[in-house]
């Protein structure tokens, strides 16, 4: 069970900030959208399954529709031909949305320093958490999700309208 956010507590009542409660709710019910293209996707399958069980962290249901997902997990080599597809998937996600880049290929192109491979997904979409490794162990992917949960908890409810966020999306030319 998640700990209660800071606030004033008494007999039968609790007073705290709404943003804390919303952050808590969002952080513990992140719906993942797995965008798996290679071996990191296999590691994520292990993360999803009973042994590592990502459901313990509130991500029970994989969402294969971008419109009903909060957390885009990009796992694997993204070819340049795939880049517009990835970008479209990101654009289809509703706010609030977060991105985890899993593995060396998604983070920087990895060993594929070549004409056909995108050199890191942050060339086309903004990334919140980078998970290193080739491929990362399931523990590392879980750690990435926990790091993201910390971000989500401490973020403004109205992050979408903050000037930094607007500027970030504008720098990627995402409307």
């Amino acid at each position, binding site marked *: 069970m998640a700990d209660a956010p800071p606030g004033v507590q008494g007999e039968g009542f609790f007073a705290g900030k709404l943003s804390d409660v919303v952050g808590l709710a969002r952080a513990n019910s992140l719906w993942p959208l797995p965008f798996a293209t290679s071996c990191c996707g296999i590691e994520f399958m292990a993360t999803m399954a009973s042994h590592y069980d990502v459901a313990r962290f509130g991500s029970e249901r994989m969402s294969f529709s971008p419109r009903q997902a909060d957390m885009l997990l990009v796992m694997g080599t993204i*070819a*340049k*031909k795939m880049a517009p597809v990835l970008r479209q998937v990101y654009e289809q996600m509703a706010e609030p949305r977060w991105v985890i880049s899993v593995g060396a290929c998604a983070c*920087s*192109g990895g060993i594929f*320093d*070549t*004409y*056909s*491979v995108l*050199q*890191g997904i942050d*060339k086309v979409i903004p990334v919140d958490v980078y998970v290193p490794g080739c491929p990362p162990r399931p523990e590392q992917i879980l750690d990435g999700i926990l790091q993201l949960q910390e971000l989500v908890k401490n973020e403004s409810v109205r992050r979408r309208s903050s000037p930094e966020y607007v500027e970030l999306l504008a720098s990627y030319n995402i409307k």
Partner: protein
Amino acid sequence: MALDNTIIQESLRGRFGDDVADFKQIHDILTFEVASGSIREVIQFLRDDQTLRFNFLTTLCGMHFPDAEQSRQIAVVYHMHNWIDNVRIRIKCYLDGDAPEIDSVADLFLSANWQERETYDFFGIIFKGHPQLKRILNMDEMVSFPLRKEFPMEDGGRTDKDDRFFGRTTDNC
């Protein structure tokens, strides 16, 4: 009776004369050169002749020799396979480095359709008469032909890889 190399060579010589040349055995496969203008006729002959019966186009790909003379810088290689006698041959066709053009064989072998597109994609070889000659594997926006030797293999946009930290200098990479 097995289909002998000499039979293949003699029937091609008899039909095409000097357009087929330089017959030699490389790694157990009879290899020869064909003048670029007659490649269609040669492949059709190999396929339809009652003795030769090369009924299968195994592969088709390009080669680039930037240091060769102008007229032999680009080449197309065809591998054909006779399933009945289990004999293979390799055909090479050298093209001009500045304007590599060759006749398409996509109507003779349907499998050549994608292989010619791929060869165009990576080497920029124009296959005349191909029904849909556009890029097949690389992204459509690409302007280079990446397997030609003048184009760098590595992506220019890489930022995290500083050659100094990997023991590479400009001389040894």
